[in-house]
């Protein structure tokens, strides 16, 4: 799974730390999600969707390996 969270975060001018605080996770978790090392749960994906004001599949997409 790939994501464009870094881009969405930049659009809202949020730091990793600010985004992490908004959705109640650690900064390292945001960093891991952005680097595609960790796939978040549906709850976390929906929280991100709420923050970005976009549907989940606007910033998460499946890759050939999935």
């Amino acid at each position, binding site marked *: 799974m790939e994501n464009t969270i870094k881009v969405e975060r930049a659009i809202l001018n949020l730091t990793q730390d600010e985004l992490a605080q908004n959705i*109640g*996770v*650690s900064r*390292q*978790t945001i*960093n*891991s999600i952005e680097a595609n*090392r*960790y796939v*978040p*749960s549906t*709850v*976390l994906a929906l929280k991100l969707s709420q923050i970005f004001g976009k549907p989940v599949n606007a910033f998460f997409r499946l890759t050939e390996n999935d």
Partner: protein
Amino acid sequence: MNVKKIMECEQKRFYKIINFRLPHKFMVIGIVVASLSIVMMFVRAFAMEGDTEWLKAVLKKTLVIGMLVMSVSKDKQEDEMTQSLRSQSYAIAFVLGVIYALVMPYVDFGVSNALKPEGETLKDLGDFQVLVFMLMIQLGFYHNLKLFR
């Protein structure tokens, strides 16, 4: 109470047990207890005289308790990723613990017989050795996984 409600109740109880964690401050308590136990083990071995087998038995228990407290203590910032990493570390600790318990007696037997003609007889590992190994693997893997996340 109908069957559905009983099942929901059981399910809630299961999740309560699965999600049980001690507050973060217990991590420090666990470290102190485990460290003191190790220090006292050295003191007992090299600086104490007389029959101290009872102390050895007590220290083994306190070391396991200290490490268990460290293992079940929450992180400063607990989130779904740390929970996932913790689950992975428990899984690998369990698998390696079983392998260790199966293989280590033969390693001990082989080494002791290679060094001395009348080496030790083949015997199973004690519970302390297996538990400490599993807790060490769990704590080590968890903190390393967290470091490399």
